[in-house]
């Protein structure tokens, strides 16, 4: 069990909480165990990774042809991220256990939570960029599940949808960028990409690649202009907000910047793009946070601004900037998670998160209040706390960084302004929530939360203070290892210390403190007009506007092209078919010398009969019964052609398919309403006629070409190899079941899925009232013979099945014969048990069939052979002589079961449905 197990431990651990809960094992316990196990694994690697700064790697090939391998890498950066994910994850699991109501804290919460943890670990540890994208998408999906945990609330659903759309689009851009990198560098492995860093940077496509990757990062880390989804994700339960939307998920984007730093950063474009986006997000986030009335909204915008700060740091081209960024990444995760949890406690105890209604909570919940105040102080960057350290480094970096647009003062001033605002909203949070007169009109009288709900917050705040007081001791090596892993090079020595002497950064932070308090005090006068307009976030309105526009225009397009009618689609389809075949076949036609194509008389007669019957079907289409009779004649003619050309296997199959087709048609016919009058205008009919002629012509030319050119067909190969390899001289069946076994397996699965769909459809319809009109009884005459004929049909089915490999037969044909026998029984109603048991049992048979078909395939893999390789064994039995058994038999049995189950699933239910279209009130 080494570090490579981490992502899989959590991902597959996600499957445990649900089922285990039935065994009365508390899902929180399971999640907690998984997290602690993960932490244990991580801490075991501390000596090599953190102290010595080594990088542990492991790689397992997954899809070599795509260059995708499960290769993982644990370096300082990965260690830091995993530490955050697992550490805060454990605390969140504990917190959620007491925050959520018992019936809510189930597998449905902890499953996705663990899946998310696994996915995040995957991102932190993945060496292969493609693998990183896979985990990236997994986080989006699990976050979607977690945000929409409270399905009943529309906000949760809307927030989840918006988060998924934005992060999903970002993921798409990232995938494009990663693939482009892979093409340029030739491999997706991080080590190779880092080696070819200069090749990548000098490449003409570098700007496009950079934008794509940054798009992925910025959407995930809610940078401006993609920041609007984060506040709406606050509809999620607080443990989720504390975990995903403050400590881990939103950090994935910034982590990606750290990972790509060695091979993407360092260029002018990176500096401008990342720094400016960071600066904008920092300012806008903190500005908007000042006006949020919902506690979590304020924290959400504060997260946005802090993420902007980290992105800004990654953008700066000074050597220590990444180190400062990683330090702030750690600090922010710690104090923001504790703030979210504190907010959760307030919400849990008072029933509301609205700052305007909250006040004077210090007296009823003193401990929580002090914890929240310390965390908020750390957020504001008060000395002796971890927030102050990273803010100090942030100020020093902005001072050392070179100028933007030729002016060196923009960065420092911007930084100070942002921290003024952050101080302001921290003070606002503390002042309005905890001080002032005691709150009135709250649903619940505020009091201290249950003991365990506060423990995670205590731990985190303790951590804030500890890091604040002795940074070098606790996190010095970790941050150094992470930063060197990020920069992939040497770092100038810099001890994170509390006191760096009286220098400009200290002045800036003092200015920020005082300014913040002043801004908060004068808040109303300074931003009087602003508050009203800011009430609704423009981001959401813009997003929803775009979506509504898209949907509206597509509906208009559909009405315009009358896409709602099937015929339109059909016409389009056929037209394309004709055009493509014309483009392909006509040139080929010119090249081919006409060979003699005089089929003998019998074939022409049979072909004539078939065409005649087809005409009958078309002309009599308004009288379904006659049409069915004509269609069966077509089938008969084709069968006789096969017989004449001595292809017994095909003839048998054609006949049986014809048989079942008739039965299906008959079962469906009563449900056809009167065929609508043909309302097509004459030009449209002409178009349809032309289309029909075109398709017919194309098919004829195609067949004729195929017949007259002696293309080296593969049939010779099958004919020779059928006996030696497939050990069966019925080539058709050997091909079906052995050589092309995989195609048949696919078809069988598709067949099963289709009939499951039909079953589901019918179950819904069949529930409507059953018809009451009585039917004349089945003739006695019929019933007594039915049993005999059924047994005969089943006997033939077994016979055809067993000899399938060497003579016409096989699973499919046998299945049809058996099905026809069973349906025959259904014709003559039997008074005792209904042969077609409830359709639901058919779905079990379908599943059994597919499994049976898959069994030999998987068994072959156990012997190290490819999927579906056939195994043969010759048993010399005493009495009987040599019996030739083969795994193909089981595969064929699977096919048999699926075919029978399909027919029995459809026919009886179709027959049982009440006649006529569901009337209006039934439809509702």
């Amino acid at each position, binding site marked *: 069990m080494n570090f490579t197990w981490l992502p899989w431990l959590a991902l597959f651990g996600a499957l445990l909480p649900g089922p285990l809960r039935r065994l009365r094992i508390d899902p929180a316990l399971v999640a907690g165990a998984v997290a602690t196990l993960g932490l244990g694994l991580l801490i075991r690697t501390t000596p090599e990774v953190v102290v010595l700064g080594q990088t542990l790697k492991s790689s397992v090939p997954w899809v070599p042809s795509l260059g995708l391998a499960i290769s993982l890498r644990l370096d300082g950066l990965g260690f830091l991220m995993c530490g955050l994910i697992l550490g805060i994850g454990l605390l969140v699991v504990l917190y959620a256990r007491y925050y959520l109501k018992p019936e809510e804290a189930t597998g449905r919460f902890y499953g996705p939570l663990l899946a998310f943890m696994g996915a995040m670990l995957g991102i932190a540890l993945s060496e292969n960029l493609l693998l990183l994208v896979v985990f990236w998408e997994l986080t989006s999906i699990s976050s979607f599940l977690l945000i929409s945990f409270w399905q009943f609330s529309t906000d949760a659903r809307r927030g989840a949808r918006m988060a998924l759309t934005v992060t999903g689009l970002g993921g798409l851009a990232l995938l494009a960028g990663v693939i482009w990198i892979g093409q340029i560098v030739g491999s997706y492995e991080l080590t190779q990409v880092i080696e070819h860093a200069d090749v990548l940077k000098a490449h003409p496509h570098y700007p496009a690649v950079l934008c794509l990757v940054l798009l992925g990062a910025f959407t995930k880390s809610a940078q401006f202009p993609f920041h609007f989804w984060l506040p709406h994700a606050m509809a999620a339960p607080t443990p989720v907000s504390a975990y995903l939307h403050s400590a881990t998920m939103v950090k994935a984007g910034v982590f990606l910047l750290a990972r790509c730093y060695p091979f993407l950063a360092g260029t002018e474009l990176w500096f401008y793009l990342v720094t400016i986006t960071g600066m904008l997000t920092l300012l806008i986030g903190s500005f908007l946070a000042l006006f949020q009335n919902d506690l979590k909204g304020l924290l959400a915008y504060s997260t946005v601004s802090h993420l902007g700060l980290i992105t800004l740091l990654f953008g700066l081209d000074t050597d220590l900037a990444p180190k400062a960024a990683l330090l702030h990444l750690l600090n922010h995760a710690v104090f923001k998670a504790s703030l979210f949890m504190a907010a959760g406690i307030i919400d849990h105890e008072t029933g509301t998160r609205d700052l305007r209604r909250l006040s004077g909570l210090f007296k009823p919940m003193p401990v929580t209040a002090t914890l929240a105040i310390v965390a908020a102080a750390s957020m504001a960057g008060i000395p002796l706390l971890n927030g102050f350290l990273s803010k100090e480094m942030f100020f020093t970096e902005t001072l050392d960084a070179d100028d933007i647009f030729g002016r060196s003062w923009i960065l420092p001033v911007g930084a100070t302004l942002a921290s003024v605002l952050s101080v302001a909203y921290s003070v606002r949070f503390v002042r309005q929530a905890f001080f002032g007169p005691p709150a009135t009109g709250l649903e619940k009288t505020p009091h201290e939360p249950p003991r365990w709900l506060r423990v995670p917050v205590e731990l985190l705040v303790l951590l804030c203070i500890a890091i604040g007081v002795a940074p070098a001791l606790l996190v010095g090596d970790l941050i150094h290892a992470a930063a060197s892993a990020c920069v992939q090079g040497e770092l100038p020595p810099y001890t994170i210390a509390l006191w760096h002497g009286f220098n400009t950064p200290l002045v800036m932070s003092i200015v920020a403190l005082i300014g913040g308090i002043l801004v908060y005090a004068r808040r109303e006068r300074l931003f009087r007009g602003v508050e009203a307009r800011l009430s609704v976030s423009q981001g959401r309105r813009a997003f929803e506007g775009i979506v509504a526009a898209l949907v509206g225009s597509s509906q208009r397009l559909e009405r315009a092209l009358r896409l709602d009618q099937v015929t339109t689609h059909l016409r389009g389809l056929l037209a394309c078919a004709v055009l493509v075949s014309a483009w392909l076949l006509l040139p080929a036609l010119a090249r081919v010398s006409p060979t003699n194509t005089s089929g003998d008389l019998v074939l022409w007669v049979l072909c004539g009969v078939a065409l*005649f019957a087809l005409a009958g079907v078309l002309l009599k289409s308004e009288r379904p019964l006659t049409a069915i009779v004509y269609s069966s004649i077509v089938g008969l003619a084709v069968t006789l052609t096969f017989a004449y050309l*001595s292809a017994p296997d095909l003839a048998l199959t054609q006949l049986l398919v014809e048989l079942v087709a008739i039965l299906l048609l008959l079962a469906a016919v009563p449900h056809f309403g009167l065929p609508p009058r043909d309302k097509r205008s004459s030009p449209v009919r002409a178009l349809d006629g032309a289309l029909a002629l075109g398709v017919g012509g194309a098919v004829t030319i195609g067949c004729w070409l195929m017949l007259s050119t002696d293309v080296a067909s593969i049939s010779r190969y099958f004919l020779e190899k059928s006996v030696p390899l497939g050990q069966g001289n019925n080539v058709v069946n050997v091909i079906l079941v052995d050589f092309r076994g995989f195609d048949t397996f696919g078809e069988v699965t598709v067949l099963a899925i289709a009939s499951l769909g039909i079953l589901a459809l019918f179950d819904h319809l069949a529930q409507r009232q059953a*018809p009451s009109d009585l039917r004349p009884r089945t003739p006695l005459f019929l019933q007594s013979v039915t049993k005999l004929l059924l047994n005969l049909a089943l006997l033939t089915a077994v016979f055809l099945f067993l000899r399938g490999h060497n003579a*016409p037969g096989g699973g499919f044909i046998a299945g049809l*014969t058996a099905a026809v026998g069973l349906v025959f029984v259904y*014709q003559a109603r039997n008074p005792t048990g209904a042969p077609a048991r409830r359709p639901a049992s058919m779905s079990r048979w379908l599943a059994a069939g597919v499994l049976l078909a898959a069994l030999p395939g998987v068994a072959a893999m156990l012997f190290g052979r490819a999927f579906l390789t056939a195994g043969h064994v010759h048993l010399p039995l005493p009495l009987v002589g040599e019996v030739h058994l083969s795994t193909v038999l089981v595969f064929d049995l699977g096919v048999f079961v699926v075919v029978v189950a399909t027919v029995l699933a459809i026919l009886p239910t179709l027959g049982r449905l009440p006649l006529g279209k569901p009337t209006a009130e039934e439809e509702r």
Partner: protein
Amino acid sequence: MLTIAGTIAAACLALACACCLWRLVRGPTSLDRVLALDTLVMNSAALVVVFTIVHGREEMFELVFVISLLGLVSTLSLARFIETGRFGSDPFEEEGDG
């Protein structure tokens, strides 16, 4: 000798099929068409038997068996459909005696 008889037989059977087709096209009621179809199926079974004898292809014989099965089930279904206006039997009808 046999081939000549075979061709004559095939010709007669082809003519028989033509008669059935004629009745099928003209048949005033759909019952007539079903009758014509049944006869046609039986004629084609006969054709296959003749073909088997003349060409000596033994494995064609299963075809005759399955064609007669086709004739039976299709005619039965069609006839029952015409009689009861519904495919197959309707389990909702009262559970009378067998």
